[in-house]
């Protein structure tokens, strides 16, 4: 039973990864791509590791998967934030359909 639940969660996580990467292809802008891809891929990878934890039980595999979940959930948004800040400071323009740029208003 727990093995089947773990496999279902793994498939859901892999689907989230695929949708995030489709967003990485189809969105028009660096910032939109970062927004769409990072959230979906973080949730998908955490879900895959949660499936590993559920289907293998509490043991060396499960506890390492739990540590990897905590690590990914902390570091992936931090890296994305640093990357978008660097892209904005290096002068990459926003998409022409963007309506607001609060960071530019704050700097001036």
């Amino acid at each position, binding site marked *: 039973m727990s093995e089947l639940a773990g496999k279902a969660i793994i*498939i859901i996580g892999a689907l989230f990864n695929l949708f995030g990467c489709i967003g990485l292809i189809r969105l028009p802008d660096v910032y939109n791509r970062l927004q769409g891809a990072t959230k979906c891929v973080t949730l998908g990878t955490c879900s*895959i590791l949660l499936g590993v934890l559920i289907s293998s039980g509490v043991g060396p595999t499960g506890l390492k998967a739990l540590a990897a979940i905590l690590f990914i959930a902390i570091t992936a948004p931090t890296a994305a934030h640093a990357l978008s800040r660097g892209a904005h400071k290096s002068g990459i323009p926003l998409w022409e359909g963007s309506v607001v740029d609060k960071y530019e208003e704050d700097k001036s």
Partner: protein
Amino acid sequence: MIGFGLSLLTLSAFLCLYRIGSGPTPADRMVGIDILGILVVGFCGLFAIITGRPFYLNIALAWGLLSFIGTTALAKHLEGKKFDE
């Protein structure tokens, strides 16, 4: 069923490679590298399930750490600073 998940992840990795190859700006390529680094952690989790050996999760932890450090260094380079500022 795990094989289906592996094929979905492989398709995602190829989409990331397309973005790394054809990104119009350098920041697009860096976003692709960041996302690909997170995807590899998921690959390592699936290999740990398939082979039944827990050391693949050690690889996943180390890969997550190195990917984070690499992305931070790329972001700092994009911002126009030296690495030791």
